[in-house]
């Protein structure tokens, strides 16, 4: 789950649009970056069961409500100067229980 990448893009978009300082900010611009954040999150694979993912998703939803944002509308185009690394497909992400075992061999 690479949800932190969405957070990075959100922060970066706020900087690009000049709404990264203390508010209040233009509602239209805020909705543009929040929609972008939301879109990134719902298209990020492999986050089923990740607590951080669900927490962030509820924060974005709350912020969108606060700014009366619609889910459909303008979004920020990904910056060409900051290409995103290829998204790892779900099949290449481990989705089992995050319970691990350890084995070691050492000495004589």
């Amino acid at each position: 789950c690479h949800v932190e990448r969405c957070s990075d893009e959100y922060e970066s978009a706020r900087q690009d649009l000049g709404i990264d300082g203390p508010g209040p900010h233009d509602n239209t611009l805020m909705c543009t970056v929040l929609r972008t954040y939301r879109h990134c999150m719902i298209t990020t694979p492999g986050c089923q069961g990740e607590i951080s993912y669900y927490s962030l998703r509820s924060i974005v939803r709350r912020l969108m409500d606060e700014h009366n944002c619609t889910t459909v509308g303008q979004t920020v185009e990904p910056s060409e100067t900051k290409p995103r690394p290829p998204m790892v497909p779900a099949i290449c992400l481990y989705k089992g229980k995050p319970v691990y075992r350890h084995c070691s061999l050492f000495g004589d």
Partner: protein
Amino acid sequence: PHIRTFYEEAQTCKVKGAWPLVNNDYLIVQVTNDPVEGNTDATATSKLTVIVKGNPECTSANFQTYQAQSNSLPGTFENGHVTYGPYGSLELIEVEPGRHVEIHIRYIETVVIVRQIGRYFTFSIKMPEELVNKTAGLPGDVSNDLDLCVRGCPLSEQINYQEYLAKRRFARPSQTRTSVSSSSSSSSSLSDSSDAKYSSDGNSPGEPLVSRAYAEKVCRASKLVDFYFDSCVFDLMATGDENFTLSALSSLQDVVKFHPSAARTMDNRTTLDLYDKQYGN
């Protein structure tokens, strides 16, 4: 060598020659153990092979092989590659050239650590619990019956390190080595005249090469605990080679990193009281 299995069994084993450590649907790990210089049946790992089975979607359909032998800890897989797949799903990271490499198999969240300390290797693996024992073998296939990480060592291959330590509690060390490795920085500062390190009174099988008191002092200074402390003491007594202190320390650090909850339950040391009483006279 000393093994800590996936199921937290701690054993000291002979396992001379080639043995499988892991063999499941995702990877195979095999080791070759050679007898160490000293007066015991103990061996240490001189060759280690990791074979990552193919994954067409994430890396490639082919098996990828990593092989390390004494004095050669390559920084790449056998064919010179370090990553496979468009997402870096399989990656070999050379953390410290010639001493420490890590193999990250990201689609199964598995990490293999191989270190070379002196002439020998240490190995650690972290793997999801539900994959450890996953083998899609044919019915009746018993291919993983000898995997040391899953089953531990066969009884006939186990060395009772507690009995070894207790029996030699007050034994005077024999002198079979002309010099002792001093790679451990702690060794020189710890030598003191009250702890006989070597004497020259014979060389019968099983006699320690350094005294238990001296070995305990060195291992305690390295802040080793629990099974790792006793392993360190055993290794020093058996070989006099202080490289093995670092081997135990690295292994302990891997446990702390990979399996913090296990590390929290470790005792300061395993109890030798019973054995010390039994062999006290």
